[in-house]
């Protein structure tokens, strides 16, 4: 039996007098044994950096949609998880003052809204006859949270100053902008697989999803 790099390993049958040799070559695979084990031996920084680059590329393509297919082709859920966790940490209400209005959502409630919302929007799209896979849909919906997250960061910065009507209108404008960019991005990627009679049915839940998240962003005042 021989391995890809030509090393000859003694097989059991050689004892009986027959010898087998050959080369197993797989197209596009690393040609040497050492290269194949590289990702196991590589420094952690390389592994980490490769994933970070993949996530970063997708973030870029959400904001500057030139090649939208990249979000569908190699989907991953790191981006949605990062964005969701970040938003949930900022959006959760304070629990000290219960006598007044209870404040914002709990951490888990934001998580639920984002993930259960993505699941239901995806299920809706698939039940109406979509052709993208389940996780591709969730990936796109999650990555398109980036505009709303950026809007949240900007609103948080605006909230440092003492509030008046103009600053509120500014926050409203930023949030609406985030909502429009997010829904537009998600709908152009996800809306394609459906006939025109059903397109509105597929796009409406996407709008509702980003609308609710934008409402959470604009209502965050503490």
């Amino acid at each position: 039996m021989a391995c890809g790099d030509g090393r000859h390993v003694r097989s059991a049958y050689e004892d009986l007098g027959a010898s087998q040799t050959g080369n197993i070559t797989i197209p596009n695979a690393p040609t040497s044994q050492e290269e194949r084990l590289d990702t196991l031996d590589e420094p952690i920084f390389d592994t980490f950096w490769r994933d970070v680059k993949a996530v970063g590329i997708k973030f870029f393509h959400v904001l500057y949609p030139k090649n939208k297919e990249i979000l569908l082709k190699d989907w991953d859920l790191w981006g949605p998880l990062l964005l969701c966790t970040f938003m949930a940490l900022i959006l959760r209400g304070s629990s000290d003052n219960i006598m007044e209005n209870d404040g914002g959502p709990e951490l888990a409630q934001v998580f639920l809204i984002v993930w259960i919302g993505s699941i239901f929007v995806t299920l809706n799209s698939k039940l109406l006859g979509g052709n993208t896979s389940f996780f591709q849909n969730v990936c796109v919906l999650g990555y398109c949270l980036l505009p709303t997250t950026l809007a949240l960061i900007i609103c948080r910065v605006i909230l440092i100053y003492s509030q008046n009507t103009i600053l509120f209108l500014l926050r409203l404008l930023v949030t609406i902008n985030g909502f429009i960019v997010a829904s537009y991005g998600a709908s152009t990627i996800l809306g394609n697989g459906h006939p025109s009679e059903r397109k509105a049915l597929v796009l409406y839940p996407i709008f509702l999803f980003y609308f609710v998240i934008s409402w959470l962003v604009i209502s965050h005042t503490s």
Partner: protein
Amino acid sequence: MAGSSLIDMEIDTSADSQLQFQEFPASNVPGPVAELDVRSSHTLTFNHSPDTPGSDTEGPESELLRDGPQKPSPSFWTFEFYQKLFDVDTQTVVDRILWSMIPRPGHSYLQHHIRPKPDLYGPFWICTTLIFAIAISGNLANYLQTAGKDFHWKYNFRVVTYAASAVYSYAWITPMVLWAYLRWCGGQEARLGFLEMMCVYGYSLSIYIPVSILWLIEVDWLQWLILGVGAALSGSVLLMTAWPAVQKTHRLPVLAAVLGLHLLLAAGFMLCFFHAPHTSLTTTTTPQPAAVVSVSVSSTSAAAQPQPQH
């Protein structure tokens, strides 16, 4: 027998007769013998109308079996079953929403709009939209009530959870109860399937979405008027749907219950989330027991420590 040493069998000869095949003598039976002639072809026709007692097929499935090619309806646990429930176009959904708000006395909403293909798209997304419409408008109304006063307003996310429990339970449990009641106690004239019931109920909630936005206008009598008009319009569609299916004797209480629950849901929302508080500003107006408990608990703990200023 070879190898029988391994197996020790005891044959009970007294029980032999139980193991014997019973033989029927061929021509000893006097009189006419009923025989099934399998050579001639028989066509079996079965009456699959939903009116026959004991038929437990639901509306849409039985109609499919009557009209189209004989395809077995997919099982409840497959994806295709649910895909069949989402087999609608935009125009169909828009039509169903519109006609659920406008009652036409001679024209059965169920027959014309829902019957061949009830869907679950409408009910689910209308309920979800209603929940967030109520939550957002409720928070906005609360803000407008306290604006201009010296009161740091923080929005209340709990409205979403309360509204969600109320709307989803109404949209699920009420049709289930009504369907169960009609199935076992109702008349035989018009059977209503469970999916159709849920569909009608879901679409009937659609009028409350513009109603909840209109409730932002902080005029007491106007809020009640809008509530009344909204509940009357969609409630009458509900009534006309349920009317033929209820037996004459039980008609009035059942229909009163249907309309009453519809009204109660809307009134609950209005009173809880939109009505201007007549008492002090710091207490919320929700009569929900959970909020009352939390307010009473926190009032004892807040009295013990000074409240932090925001």
